């Protein structure tokens, strides 16, 4: 078959989302107000359709039976070429739908849009942002999905930028405040710098390997690729050449902007606070997912255990990210900023999974540690750090969305709720929202039996299986960080439950926003209790089907870095 057609066959969800985005642009600018009003519904519909239509198409046309049983069938519905991409698409579409519910009425927070849409002034396409907002929303999600299918550096770069560029604009277009503009400009320039960094890294990698292909595509398995190039070197026992290593390091640091990890975390608090809350919820999930997906794809080309330079870099980044995030989260007076720092800290936890990668050591896999093996292969769930990251993204996504969703549902003196005073005594104002906030906090702390606990178990347990002492210490640092984070998460929950309400705080009368928040809260419980019954953990484990090579040199590859 034509490689182009082959490629497109796995991009059904993205194509549908793009069509949906364009449709939103048009419908959002139609003259009849009734038509304009259905724009969010169109966006939601395209999110649903982007999963269902390709799956239905696949079920009708495909005659090869899938061997996958149970829940892992979901990964073979024709959503993508790889199970990895299919998992990411499912997760992004699912959480994207909740994010969309929370974001309904977000464009109307801009006064001119509100005036136009409520009919107080005559319709003028230049004065309404509804169409653009939902279109950009869908573009951004499309970007993440494309990231997951990436097999070349160019593709990865474009997909990452498709994720980020709409978010820069969404920050500024939903809030009529100088701080939002500041946030958007800051976000844009720092983002551009990050792009420059990882682009430079990509260029160096291309220079070393002579190709932009990360993996050889399925239709040309013999083609040269970065994965093949690095594998050849490691097989021969040679070190990576400096340009490749520097390229990888620059790429990792550049992409760490997307996941808000140290040293590229400085923008986070200002941007998250400046953006309107529904957009902040999106910022805390969508670019982060894209960043982690990109990092998994890049590092998978290197194979695990990582070369010492990369492993030490990631170790230091992980330790610094979670510590900086949690310690600075402690001293915030704004709930939004505290949650922004918490989002940094969670990236630190997830970096652990990236260092672990896949571990074949130990009896549970019956693996022979003496040889390099190239995947995809079956690994016991708790020895699969990448599955931990994939699962944690979802667990963190719902917990975080519950927290931001509650904030988005509140307004204080006509402005967005932001400080601790604004959520004080939330229990008296709205018991349901307070309960959701509590669930979100408990899940983010990682207290059993909610989703966050399973996520942490899935992230931290694999770290033990590598047999590297440095990783065990990293887990201990992460656990102590969980304890630090409990201080401000508890403070948020306690403020909502123990304090007396004060000030003029109202609940936004938006059923959709409330529903999205509530569903996120309930999901933290359901994922926690039934992750096993619904096979979600298996799903994440099965989703790691990239052609990863696991190298024999185990314990000696990494020394404990100097204490910081």
């Amino acid at each position, binding site marked *: 078959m034509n490689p182009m057609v082959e490629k497109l066959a796995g991009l059904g969800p993205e194509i549908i989302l793009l069509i949906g985005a364009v449709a939103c642009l048009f419908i959002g600018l139609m003259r009849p107000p009734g038509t304009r009003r259905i724009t969010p519904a169109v966006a939601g519909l395209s999110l649903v359709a982007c999963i269902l239509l390709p799956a239905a198409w696949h079920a009708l046309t495909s005659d090869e039976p899938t061997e996958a049983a149970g829940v892992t069938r979901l990964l073979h519905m024709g959503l993508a070429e790889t199970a990895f991409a299919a998992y990411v698409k499912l997760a992004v579409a699912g959480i994207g739908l909740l994010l969309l519910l929370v974001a309904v009425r977000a464009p109307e927070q801009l006064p001119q849009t509100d005036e136009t849409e409520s009919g107080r002034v005559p319709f003028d396409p230049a004065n309404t942002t509804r169409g653009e907002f939902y279109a950009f929303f869908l573009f951004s999600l499309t970007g993440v999905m494309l990231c997951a299918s990436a097999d070349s550096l160019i593709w990865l770069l474009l997909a990452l930028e498709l994720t980020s560029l709409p978010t820069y604009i969404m920050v500024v277009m939903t809030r009529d405040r100088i701080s939002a503009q500041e946030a958007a400009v800051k976000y844009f320039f720092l983002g551009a710098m990050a792009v420059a960094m990882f682009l430079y890294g990509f260029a160096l990698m291309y220079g070393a390997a002579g190709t932009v292909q990360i993996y050889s595509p399925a239709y040309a398995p013999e083609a040269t690729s970065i994965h093949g190039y690095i594998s050849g070197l490691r097989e021969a026992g040679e070190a990576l050449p400096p340009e490749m290593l520097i390229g990888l390091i620059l790429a990792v640091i550049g992409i760490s902007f997307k996941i808000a990890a140290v040293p590229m975390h400085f923008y986070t608090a200002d941007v998250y606070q400046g953006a309107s809350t529904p957009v902040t919820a999106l910022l805390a999930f969508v670019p982060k997912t894209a960043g982690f997906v990109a990092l998994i794809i890049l590092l998978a080309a290197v194979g695990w255990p990582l070369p010492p330079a990369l492993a030490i870099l990631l170790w230091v980044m992980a330790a610094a990210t979670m510590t900086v995030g949690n310690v600075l989260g402690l001293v915030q007076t704004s709930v939004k900023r505290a949650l922004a720092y918490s989002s940094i800290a969670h990236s630190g936890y997830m970096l652990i999974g990236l260092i672990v990668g896949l571990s074949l050591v130990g*009896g549970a896999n019956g693996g022979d540690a003496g040889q390099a093996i190239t995947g995809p292969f079956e690994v016991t769930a708790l020895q699969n750090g990448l599955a931990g990251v994939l699962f944690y993204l979802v667990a963190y996504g719902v917990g975080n969305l519950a927290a931001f969703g509650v904030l988005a549902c509140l307004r204080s003196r006509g402005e967005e709720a932001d400080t601790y005073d604004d959520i004080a005594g939330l229990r008296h104002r709205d018991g349901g929202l307070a309960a959701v906030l509590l669930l979100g906090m408990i899940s983010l*702390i990682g207290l059993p039996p909610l989703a966050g606990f399973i996520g942490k178990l899935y992230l931290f347990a694999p770290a033990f299986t590598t047999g590297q002492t440095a990783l065990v210490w990293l887990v201990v640092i992460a656990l*102590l960080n969980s304890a630090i984070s409990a201080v401000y998460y*508890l403070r948020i929950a*306690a403020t909502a439950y123990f304090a007396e309400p004060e000030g003029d705080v109202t609940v936004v009368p938006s059923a959709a926003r409330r529903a999205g928040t509530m569903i996120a809260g309930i999901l933290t419980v359901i994922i926690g209790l039934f992750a096993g019954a619904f096979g979600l953990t298996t799903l994440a484990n099965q989703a790691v089907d990239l052609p990863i090579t696991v190298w024999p040199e185990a314990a000696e590859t990494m020394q404990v870095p100097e204490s910081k």
Partner: protein
Amino acid sequence: MRPETLIPLMVLLPLLAAPAIFALPRRLSEVWAWALFISVLNFAVAVAVVVFAYLPAPGSEVSRLSEGGFFLTGAGWPWLEDFGLRISFGLDAISLWLVVLTALLMPITVLASRTAVTERYREYYMWLLLLEAAMIGTFIATDVIFFYVCFEFTLVPMFFLIGIFGSTQRLKAARVFFLYTFTGSLLMLAGLIYLAYFNAAQDLATAAQTLAELRNIDVSEAQAWLAGQEQAAALGHWTFDIQALTFTAQTLMSPAQQGWLLLALLAGFAVKVPLFPVHTWLPLAHTEAPTAGSVILAGVLLKLGTYGLIRFALPMCPEAVVTFAPYIGVLAVIAILYTALICWVQTDVKRLIAYSSVSHLGFCVLGLFAIDAERHIGQSGAVMYMINHGLSTGALFLCIGMIYERFHTRELAAMSGLGRVMPVWAFFFVLFCLASVGLPGLNGFIGEFLTLVGAFLATDTLGMGFAIAAGFGMILAAIYILYMVGKVIWGPTKVPESHDHNRDAAHAGEAHHGPAVRDLNRREIAVLSPLAALCIFIGLYPFPMLQSLDKPVMTLTRPAAEVVAERADARSEAEREQAARTFEAIERDATREGRR
């Protein structure tokens, strides 16, 4: 219905009733009645479980309890099968009595809270029932992660009970309580995951090799021995089953690995117990908590720590336990003496009792680590102590709660001579104080005496010095408790001024012209009398309970006892050799002399 189903029922009943009680009834009396009904029902289930425990299992001659191992076990439900994680449960005598204690204290606290909580009562009873579910879950778990889940989940209801219903410093107390215990147990979680990995990373071949190196035996011999072990089947799989992991840890871990594991477990359990020097959260939490909260904290939650020590630490890391026992013993003795002295200078009655808990739990830990080659007196005593402390200290907190409800003060200086105006209350208060001091004939004595004897006899780990030092703690306990009793009950009558006219409906009429202080009403007597009866009963007739504890305690302490015996053997062997060498040398000298 199979009797096994009763065990998870004890968790499910309060767990499912809690949200229903929050959502359905409106009025305080209804909510209270439902909470009481559910907790009494759960206690009835617990009693049924005791009955089944004394009945023989099908196809067996002796009662389930006297078989010694876990009984009424069930594989439960898979939770995360990829991880090897199940919700599995079972009981042995230790957990059985602790479950009964929990199920007994719960209706009593509900009964006692009738007038104390009049606002946000739906939340109150919801959290109480959730707490009961979590506590019972901790005791019945036979899967370490299920244990951990319940262990951690107790924090949330307690956080709210203290934070909403506590006294003035409640916010700080709730937060300190949560963060302290949460931090400790996270490190424990790391230890448990490490252990599970250690188990998964072994297979029979490597395990035999490890075993051969550890025991200095042949690999083939080790292989043959392992093949005969039932629990060895779990090697090489991810599992969190307590028995499988205990087996792996005690047989295959090197002393250094056991040391790290013990440290991790201690981080979680020592904070919960609480052991000196990590006890500082306790006085604050106890003092600020509402009465029900203090009763449950002292009665059950502290026991989660000692229960964890005997269920996990002792059998899993015997080598390390024996090595560390003297140091932990020193900490326990410091806890006993230091907090006893602190008690002496307290001016707040509730704070005094709170500190006395630290002192008492010091005895418990001392008994747990009094490891002896042949006997396990200290450990049996410690388990008895856990139950008896739950009864007597829980009751003391209830007594003080009744005083606080009347006078809104707990200051020692504000009251004296209450024996004259509240004779019934004074009777109970003195009884529980004496039980708590360890008067022979009352329940506190049994545990205290056995732990001291255990420490005294365990010469290889603790020995006489520890027993004598801890014995001083008993004297100090008598001093501070009797000092308090003397001040509160006897002396010139002084009733605190800020006392509140009773809110009880039965006495509403006489509140304005009747006696200024009313003694206990029927409900309050009903609260205290079962506890008083049990204090006396167990004090006079502790044998059935002691007897049932014998086998499970022996199973759990045997590995550590074997280590002690081995080391003693090695030492006496070395001494014999030394003596023989000295003798030879003397003989040589003598013959040389003789030749000369």
